[in-house]
C-alpha cells in the first residue's frame, strides 16, 4: 500500500501529536535513567492506537502493508522527539531480517506478534569489535542432533538486548554466517546492559552458552540477508537522523531570533546567520536523501542500494553537524545538562557510528557504485 502526500501529512501530524503528549523531554529524561529504557504503557498505545509496529509489515503477517516511505515519516518524528522505545530494533532490524530471510514459517510465527506490538525483538550481529559485517562474526552454531541448533558466543552493541522478547542472531555454521532466532527465556542466554553514550538507545552484551536456537532462512544466507537489512535499516536510521537534525535546526533558529547580545538578536549577526543557513542546507539534503532512498526502496528500484548508502552518509553527517552547531548557537546554556542539546549530540554521534561510521559507509557507497 502507498500513502499519498496528504495521507503522509496526516500520518506525520498524528505521530507528532502522540509523541508530544507521550514523549516530551521530561519523559525522555526519566526513561534514560530507567530499566527498561521505555514505557511499556506508551509502547502499547503506539501499537494499539497508531498501529506503528505493524505499519510496514505485510498484511499477510498481520501488518498494514505500507513501505519505507511511510515508516520514514514515523521515524523522522521519533528521531525528532528522541522517543525511547523498542521500535528501531524491533521493526527496522528484527522484522526486516525475518522478511529478508524469505523464511515464510518464521515470518508467520513471529511477525504477527511484532505487528501487534506484543512482541519486541532485536538483531544481534556485532561482537566485541563492533562490526556489522557478517564475515566478521565468530559466534558459532552447531546442529543439536534433534533438528534444532545450539549457539555459542558473545554479541555486543545489541540494541534493547536486555528487554527484547526475541533475539535474531547471526552465527557461523560450516556453510557460513547464518541467521537464527532465540527466545528471551532460552537457557544459557545472559544479557548485561552496556553504558551508552546515547542513553535513549539501550544496548547490551549477550552471552550465548549453548543456547537452543531455530534456523531462519537458508544455512549460510546470513551475508545476503544482512546486506539487505543494513540497506533498509540505514535508511530508517537516516530518517531518524533527518528528524533529529531538523529539530536541532529549529531549536537554533528559534533561539537565534530571541537571544539578544550587544543589543541585537544574535541571529542578526552574519556569523550566526550563516551557521544556521549551513545547517539548513545540511538538513534539506538529509531529508531529500533519506526520503528519496525510501521511495526507491518501495519502488523496488535497482538504484536503491546506492541511494541507501548516500542517505546513511548524508544524514549521519548532517545530524552530527546540526547537533554540534546547535550547542554552539546556544553558547554556554547549550553545554548544560539541563538543556536538551546534549541529548541530540549524543544521539547524533551514536547513530553516525552505529553501523561502523564514515570509514565503513564511504567504502560501502563506493562499492555500491562499482568503484
Amino acid at each position: 500500500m502507498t500513502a499519498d502526500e496528504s495521507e503522509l501529512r496526516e500520518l506525520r501530524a498524528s505521530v507528532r501529536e502522540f509523541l508530544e503528549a507521550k514523549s516530551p523531554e521530561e519523559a525522555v529524561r526519566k526513561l534514560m535513567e530507567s530499566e527498561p529504557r521505555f514505557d511499556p504503557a506508551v509502547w502499547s498505545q503506539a501499537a494499539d492506537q497508531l498501529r506503528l509496529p505493524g505499519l510496514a509489515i505485510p498484511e499477510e503477517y498481520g501488518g498494514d502493508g505500507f513501505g519505507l516511505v511511510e515508516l520514514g515519516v514515523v521515524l523522522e518524528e521519533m528521531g525528532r522527539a528522541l522517543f525511547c522505545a523498542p521500535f528501531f530494533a524491533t521493526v527496522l532490524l528484527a522484522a526486516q531480517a525475518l522478511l529478508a530471510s524469505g523464511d515464510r514459517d518464521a515470518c508467520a510465527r513471529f511477525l504477527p506478534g511484532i505487528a501487534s506490538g506484543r512482541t519486541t525483538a532485536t538483531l544481534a550481529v556485532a561482537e566485541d569489535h563492533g562490526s556489522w559485517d557478517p564475515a566478521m562474526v565468530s559466534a558459532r552454531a552447531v546442529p543439536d542432533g534433534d533438528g534444532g541448533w545450539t549457539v555459542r558466543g558473545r554479541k555486543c552493541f545489541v540494541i534493547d538486548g536486555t528487554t527484547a522478547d526475541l533475539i535474531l542472531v547471526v552465527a557461523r555454521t560450516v556453510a557460513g554466517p547464518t541467521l537464527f532466532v532465540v527466545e528471551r527465556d532460552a537457557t544459557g542466554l545472559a544479557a548485561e546492559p552496556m553504558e551508552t553514550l546515547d542513553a535513549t538507545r539501550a544496548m547490551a552484551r549477550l552471552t550465548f552458552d549453548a543456547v537452543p536456537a531455530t534456523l531462519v532462512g537458508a544455512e549460510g544466507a546470513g551475508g545476503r540477508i544482512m546486506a539487505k537489512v543494513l540497506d533498509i535499516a540505514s535508511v530508517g536510521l537516516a530518517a531518524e537522523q533527518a528528524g533529529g537534525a531538523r529539530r536541532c535546526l529549529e531549536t537554533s533558529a528559534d533561539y537565534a531570533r530571541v537571544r539578544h547580545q550587544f543589543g541585537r538578536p544574535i541571529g542578526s549577526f552574519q556569523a550566526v546567520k550563516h551557521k544556521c543557513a549551513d545547517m539548513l542546507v545540511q538538513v534539506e539534503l538529509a531529508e531529500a536523501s533519506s526520503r528519496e532512498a525510501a521511495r526507491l526502496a518501495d519502488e523496488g528500484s535497482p538504484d536503491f542500494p546506492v541511494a541507501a548508502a548516500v542517505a546513511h552518509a548524508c544524514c549521519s553527517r548532517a545530524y552530527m553537524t546540526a547537533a554540534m552547531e546547535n550547542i554552539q548557537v546556544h553558547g554556554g546554556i547549550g553545554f548544560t545538562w539541563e538543556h536538551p542539546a546534549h541529548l541530540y549530540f549524543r544521539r547524533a554521534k551514536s547513530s553516525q557510528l552505529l553501523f561502523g561510521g564514515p570509514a565503513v559507509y564511504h567504502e560501502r557507497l563506493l562499492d555500491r557504485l562499482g568503484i
Partner: protein
Amino acid sequence: MESDDMRDFATEARRFLDAHVAKAPDRTAVTWGEGDDSMAYFSSLPPEEEREFVQRAREWQRIRHENGFGWITGPVEYGGRGLTPVHDLLYDAIESEYDVADTGVLSVIGLGMIGPTILAHAQPHIRDRWLPAMYRGDAIACQLFSEPGAGSDLASVATRAVREDGGPSRSSEAESGGDWVLNGQKVWTSVAQHSQIGLALTRTNPDAPKHRGITAFLVPMDAPGVEVRPLRQMTGGADFNEVFLTDVRIPDDHRLGEVDGGWTVALTTLMNERATVGSEGVGPVGAALSPDHLSALMRATWTWDDRALRARLAELLVDVLATEHLNARALRKLRGGVAPGPEMSVSKLMYGQNLTRAAHFVSDVLGPRIIADTGQWGTYAWTELLLATPALRILGGTEEIMKNILAERVLGLPKEPVTAAAKEVRS
C-alpha cells in the same frame, strides 16, 4: 502524483521537442581517452564561433516561440502562453534532456529577468516594440546593474542620470519630460556585446536615502556614448563586459517606473532570477559530477586504491548524489504543480560547492599533470573548470548573500540592523 494539467503540458512539450531535436548525449558515461575532453564552464569562443553560437541560440528561440514555448509565462497579447512559473520550470527540466542549442545568451538575463521587468514597468509602446522581438529571438537584452562600487550592495549605484532641461530632477516633476543624460560605469555585464537593449539602474537623487534615489532606464545599446569593453576574467577568456556610459541621451519614455522609483523596478528583475532544476548534470562539466567519470579518472591514474583519495571521493559523491536527490524531489513537486521551497537555493549553493570540490579533488588526483600539459587526454583540460570554480561562489549572488537570504526568508532570522552610514550613497 502528477497533476493532469502538468502531465498534458509535459506531453505537449515532449511532442514538440521530439519533432525538432534529438535527445542529449549522455556525458556521464565515459570511455577513457575518447571524445571531447573539454571541461570549459565559460564558453570563451573565438569571435567567428561566438557569432555562430549566438545565431544558433536565436534560431532555437525562434522555433520555440513559433511552437508556443518561447515565453511560457508571458501574456498572450505579447506572444506568451499565459502559464505559470511552474510550467516554465517544468519545460526547462524537460528540455534539458534534449540536445538543443544553448540559449543562455538570450534567456538567462533577457528573457528571464529583463522581459518580465519591461512587462511590469515600461510604457505600452516600449512593451510593444521590444517584448515580441525579444521572445522571437531577434533582440537580446542585458542588465546594467552592478558597478565597481555597487556589488552585493546594489542599491549604492552611482551612475548619474540628469534630466537635460535643468538641474537634477525631483520626484515632484515625475511626469513625462525632457531627455535624460547618463554618465557612469557598469561592470560584470554578461552578453552586453550581443545586446540591443540594456536595463540600467541610475542615481537620480543623490540626496535621498540610497534606495529612494534610483531610476531605471531602458538603454538602446547602439546609442551614442555607450561603449562595451570585454572584461577578461581569471580563466583568460572574456565572458563579461564593462559598459561605459558617457553623456548617453535617453528619452523619458524609456524610463521604467517612477523617477526615483527604480529600486522597485530592480526588485522585479531580481525576483525573476531563477534557479533551474534538473539541469545539473548537463554540459561538459556534467563529467565533473559523474561517479563513472571520476572513477575512470582514478583508474587511468592508478590511484583507485588510494585510501585517502577514496574517502574524499566518497564524501564528494555523497553531496553530489544527495543534491541530485534534492533536485529530483523538487522536480516531482513541479510535476504535481507545486512550487518547490528552499530546494532551489540549496541546490544552487551545493552546485557551486560540489563543482569546486570536484575540481580540487581531480587536481589532487592528477597532481603534476594539472600544473603542466603533458598532452594526455582528460588531464590538463581540467584547468578550465578549476579556474572557473571561484566564479560559482560569486555570480548571481555571492554565497554569503545566498546564506543571508536562506536564513532570513526560510528560517526567519532578523536582518542586520541598518546603520545610518549604510543608508547613504557613498559619493
